[in-house]
């Protein structure tokens, strides 16, 4: 077993990954969690390179950071936009009665 400077790097990388994921899973602000998740994905890409898996690293960099992040952000925005009262047309058809007393459609961005 060879303990080298590389092992130190491994430990540091692993600890950073764990710290990031702990934070992203426990931070109160969901928006912050999503941002942390994107950086987590980038760090994972680095890890895949370290593990001699360049194919996976490429896929992770493109998918994990380039697509999953925007997906989360747009979902978050869609939810927030809805909550601020900009109702969508199509969700009224199945609505039950008690939703009637719902936000007036005032606020726009």
């Amino acid at each position, binding site marked *: 077993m060879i303990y080298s400077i*590389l092992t130190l790097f491994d430990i540091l990388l692993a600890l950073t990954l764990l710290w990031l994921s702990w934070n992203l899973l*426990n931070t109160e602000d969901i928006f912050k969690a*999503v941002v942390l998740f994107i950086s*987590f994905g980038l760090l994972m890409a680095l890890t895949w390179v370290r593990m001699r898996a360049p194919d996976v690293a490429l896929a992770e960099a493109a998918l994990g950071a380039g697509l999953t992040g925007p*997906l*989360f952000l747009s*979902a978050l925005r869609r*939810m927030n936009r809805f909550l601020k009262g900009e109702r969508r047309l199509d*969700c009224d058809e199945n609505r039950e009665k008690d939703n009637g007393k*719902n936000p007036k459609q005032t606020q726009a961005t």
Partner: protein
Amino acid sequence: MITTQIYSITGLLLFGMGLFTLIVHSHPLRKILAVNVMSTGVFLILIATAYTPLGQGEVDPVPHAMVLTGIVVSVSVTALALILSCRVQETSNRDLLREKPVAETAKECTR
């Protein structure tokens, strides 16, 4: 083999953290994030299994192919789950992100 050990254990810890968050937290986005962290953990163990240090032979390509497959699957499932959670939010009268009725959030906004 110390490298394999380090990353395997990290992957396992990621899996555990994700699992705990998935069960305990009730916000849909947080749950989806947790599932993603879990799957990353599993992939990490798999890739670490295949790892061979430079100069000591080839890396096993089968786990790499499996992980590639897995990453694409997890992205597509994440996207579907996100859209589904948006729909759930739009048809529910609770603010799922903040755990209170929708009306309260709306009031907060108009203020």
